[in-house]
């Protein structure tokens, strides 16, 4: 261990406290019996019970999960194709525009993406009658569009780090190109695809701004419902919801970390 200076150590301590103290406090206050969320009124789990009876939150959570699963799957398919095209097909016509379009959605401010997609849907509706109603499908399309960029980048960098002669070797041994993709390329980029799917899934669950633009009346995602509640101030059942999310994510990441460590440990 190299010795760290006191300045660096205190920056680390402060930084991690900055990142985690707010989250820990939310977890603590979710067990607060008091309705006024900032005053401690004794330990209780009543807010979890109330959360489970809140239909609007449950409906929104269900819609969000549907959208997240659909868009993550579509984004993984499209993004993998795009990543393959960028990393393996060499130069093709329109490649510059393609790679530009792939990386732009990631850095585009959400308000712009949301606004532009809504205006597209409105225009499409005027011209073709579709989408008649905005909701599940429009949100899923919007989420697919920005998530596929992340998948494409993850897949592309995995492919660039991968020895291209693996695919050439398979082709040399008689594998036709499409066969080689299924025999060699896809199994080897599977971890990147899974990572891409998980990231897309999270991004979709996380998105408030874009969904607010492209959803229609009667279809609110979980972040939209949360937002409409917290606009009015701190609310104890949101604390409970946040706690569920924080604990689930932390457990998931912890398990993945332990499994990953065991897998990489030399046998």
């Amino acid at each position: 261990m190299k010795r760290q200076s006191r300045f660096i150590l205190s920056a680390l301590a402060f930084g991690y406290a900055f990142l985690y103290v707010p989250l820990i406090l939310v977890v603590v206050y979710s067990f607060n019996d008091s309705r006024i969320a900032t005053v401690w009124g004794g330990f209780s789990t009543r807010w979890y019970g109330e959360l489970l009876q809140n239909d609007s939150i449950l409906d929104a959570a269900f819609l969000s999960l549907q959208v997240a699963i659909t868009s993550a799957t579509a984004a993984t398919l499209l993004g993998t194709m795009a990543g393959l095209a960028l990393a393996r097909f060499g130069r093709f016509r329109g490649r510059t525009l393609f790679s530009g379009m792939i990386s732009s959605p990631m850095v585009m401010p959400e308000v712009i993406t949301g606004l532009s997609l809504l205006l597209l849907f409105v225009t499409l509706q005027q011209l073709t009658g579709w989408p008649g109603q905005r909701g599940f499908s429009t949100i899923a399309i919007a989420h697919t569009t920005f998530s596929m960029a992340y998948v494409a980048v993850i897949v592309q960098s995995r492919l660039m780090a991968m020895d291209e002669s693996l695919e050439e070797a398979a082709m040399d041994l008689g594998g036709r190109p499409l066969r080689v993709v299924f025999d060699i390329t896809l199994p080897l980029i599977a971890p990147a695809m899974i990572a891409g799917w998980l990231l897309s899934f999270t991004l979709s669950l996380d998105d408030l701004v874009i969904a607010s633009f492209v959803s229609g009346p009667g279809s609110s995602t979980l972040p939209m419902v949360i937002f409409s509640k917290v606009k009015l101030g701190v609310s104890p059942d949101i604390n409970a919801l946040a706690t569920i999310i924080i604990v689930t994510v932390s457990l998931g990441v912890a398990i993945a970390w332990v499994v990953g460590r065991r897998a990489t440990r030399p046998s």
Partner: protein
Amino acid sequence: MTANAKNDETWRRVAVAVPYLWLFVFFLAPFAIVFKISLADPVIAQPPFTASFDEQGNLAASADSFRFLLTDKLYVITYLRSVLMAGGATILCLALGFPMAYGIARSNPATRNLLLLLIVLPFWISFLLRVYAWMGLMNNHGVINNFLMWLGAIDKPIQFMYTDFAVFVGLAYSYLPFMILPLYASLERMDLSLVEAAQDLGATRTRAFWDVTWPLARAGVIAGCLLVFIPAMGEYVIPYLLGGPESLLIGRVLFDEFFVNRDWPLASAVAIILLLLLVVPIVVLQRYQARDQESAA
């Protein structure tokens, strides 16, 4: 070319064409529409803007929205405020993120992975809820005020919420990981013996830092700063939840213009100008990321 080889070409075309078409329709085309609508006039109708062509088929474009935006002080000030707030948050993130990234890059491998994991973990937890967490902290009766009063440092609550300070903190908190990761990547790649060599050649620790570490980390610094600055410029949730009514940022103005005032042409014009402001940083960022990917390959 044999029939087989032709077949092999077909799937490649499909693999390019499908995502290409998708992005064309759902990413590129919308911008054209935003531009088109920004040149229309607002009307009370469904949809609430005039057509690009009047009944005689003449082009009916008006730059009224843009003219309004650029002459009305409110919008000019809001753009400037957005740049200042986003810039300030970027500097805050850099000041805290650099020593953290440095410390992580210099820690031993086992600790390093855990520390990195803890930087990435918040990404997976809802952004909205992380901003929300600060509401409970900064309230007049929130944890910070209660704590300070309990200490006796203050006798009445300090107003944190609904101030620019709260927006700064919220921005820095939310985007800190975006700063640390690229910084870490460039610092981790750096050979520690370079700093030792500089010190060996007579540089003080501070000198060695400015002569060796900083220039070598520059790519990471630029990428990190842009990754914080660009989304912060368009931020909507943080100013809405933590900022006061007068702490307007451009993302929030766009949102309100669209949903509250239903002035679609003006909202579109706001978006176009925001995009123009961000074109340079976005292009610079993409150039850095492309270079980074090449050097990694």
